């Protein structure tokens, strides 16, 4: 796959911009589904192409760190770059203020500069430790083929003004209303206008809801109402071909309702911060210093198929490349005892035993 592509990746941009014939930012997937990008190239690759159109993505927040905001920001920015209508709801008083913090796509020149070392590594075929670069190469190929499908975002640079202009961006504060009816109403009108103006699905839209059951909202104790809202939203998203991302703090939902929420999600992701000074974990994992947190994929949307998606790994480390772009990597065990390159769990009990070497096999 890699060898079939021309080496000069700097030319790929022009080719692809001419070749995008279909809906911008939408990629066809298997079983008659389509994908749109999550705004994080690595996450797209992990999920097999991106978020499936018509799916409900739920992100379980870390109670102490705002890592879910990174996912939401990239998701929303990518939508604005693709000129897709956007609906954003949050428990803040002024949700529109959040738009000012959206990251800006990186210029192609910067993109190239990090592309080159990865490519060289692949050509040299260095052993298993560099397995992660193969993955990166793949995403690079995808990006080369369809340059606009997924951008890298510079988290330090705010999105430029012109991306907002002439676009449909709705913002709602979850705090205003005592129940969820107005929010559902807004979502319905939002999706109705999209599908009406375009007939069949020629355009997709994104819905981002932040911290749905946070205590600032008056309806946070009405658990059945929230469930039926999520159910209605899921049905609406499925029929209109949009993608909805809902983040919520799982600790605030009672345990059996939490399971119901998880069953309702098509794609289920959780983010977790990692403790600052966990020496055992630092010994176990390479690159621990640069890690922002951990991202786990619990469920991947299966629409029009019964085959479950089995991922190679379910937990990934979130890192910032050059303090700008968010990247996800397989967890790499520090090469102490020369065992396999990626570990799937990071439990504390594991770390102790592997260090002292009392594993009896």
């Amino acid at each position, binding site marked *: 796959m890699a060898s079939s592509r021309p080496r000069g990746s700097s030319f790929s941009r022009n080719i692809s911009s001419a070749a995008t014939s279909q809906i911008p930012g939408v990629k066809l997937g298997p*079983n*008659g589904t389509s994908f749109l990008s999550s705004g994080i190239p690595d996450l797209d690759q992990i999920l097999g192409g991106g978020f499936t159109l018509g799916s409900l993505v739920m992100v379980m927040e870390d109670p102490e760190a705002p890592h879910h905001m990174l996912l939401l920001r990239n998701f929303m920015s990518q939508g604005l770059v693709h000129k897709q209508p956007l609906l954003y709801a949050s428990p803040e008083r002024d949700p529109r203020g959040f738009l000012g913090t959206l990251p800006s796509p990186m210029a192609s020149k910067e993109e190239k500069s990090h592309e080159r070392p990865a490519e060289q590594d692949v050509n040299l075929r260095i052993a298993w430790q560099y397995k992660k670069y193969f993955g990166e190469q793949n995403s690079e190929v995808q990006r080369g083929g369809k340059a606009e499908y997924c951008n890298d975002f510079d988290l330090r640079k705010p999105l430029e003004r012109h991306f907002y202009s002439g676009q449909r961006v709705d913002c709602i504060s979850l705090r205003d209303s005592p129940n969820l009816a107005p929010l559902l109403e807004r979502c319905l009108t939002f999706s109705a206008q999209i599908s009406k103006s375009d007939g069949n699905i020629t355009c997709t839209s994104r819905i981002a809801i932040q911290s749905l059951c946070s205590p600032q909202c008056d309806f946070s104790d009405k*658990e*059945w109402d929230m*469930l*039926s809202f999520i*159910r209605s939203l899921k*049905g609406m998203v*499925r*029929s209109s071909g949009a993608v909805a991302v809902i983040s919520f703090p799982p600790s605030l939902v*009672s*345990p*059996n309702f939490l*399971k*119901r929420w*998880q*069953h*309702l999600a098509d794609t*289920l992701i959780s983010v977790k911060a990692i403790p600052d000074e966990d020496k055992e974990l630092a010994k176990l994992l390479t690159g621990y210093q640069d890690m922002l947190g951990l991202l786990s994929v*619990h*469920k991947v949307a*299966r*629409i*029009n*198929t*019964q*085959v*479950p998606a*089995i991922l190679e790994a379910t937990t990934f480390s979130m890192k910032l490349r050059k303090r700008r772009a968010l990247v996800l990597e397989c967890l790499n065990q520090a090469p102490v005892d020369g065992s396999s390159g990626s570990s*799937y769990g990071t439990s504390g009990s594991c770390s102790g035993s592997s260090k002292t070497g009392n594993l009896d096999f």
Partner: protein
Amino acid sequence: METARANLLEEAVGVSKGGRVVVVEDCVETSGAFVLHHYLKRSLHPDSSDVVVFIAFAHPFSHYERILRKMVSSRLVINGREAREDGLLALYGEIEKAVEIYSSLEGSRTITIMIDDVSLMEVAANGSSNHVLDFLHYCYTLRAKYGCSFVTLNHEDIYSSANMLPLILQSEYLADVIIKAEPLATGLASDVHGQLTVLNKESVCDLGGGSISKVRNFHFRVKESYVDYFYPGTQT
């Protein structure tokens, strides 16, 4: 090859003699929807004249249609409507009417009523699980009258706390066959997607006077058009 393997589930479930109640239970990690698809496929096979009354809360019908098209070679059409929310009583009325119509037609056919899934029905009923239970009991009466079968899907892990228990316990008690889909204790693997536990209350083996219902346990691997069932460790 394919039929030989599919038989492991059918073997465990046994040959149905008239109406039976099958409860499928799954959890977040492992979906049990493929068991529903299996029943759908069996009933809607071109050779059979069986009828399915399908009540879908989880997915639009296009989703099931697409899956079934891969499993059954001929093109089939599912006629039906997505479940509405104007009360379970109206829904029951519709089911009863459909069952009545189909059983009055000539030819012996079994009618299967399927619900995907019961927990979403609870959401539609705004959390009153008693109403859902009533609804299920109403449906069970159709079994005596018309000899219908029932296949329902529910999520076992939702009902972990005590106040939610009656629904799952009662439906388990009333079921003839309970099929549980669980992940492997060691996590998911690409060649084994999970394990099925089938409890068949009908096929009791006589052990010294007392009857014991039969439990079978095997692994499965879901594929696009069929599912592989095999005993642990016997997969080639």
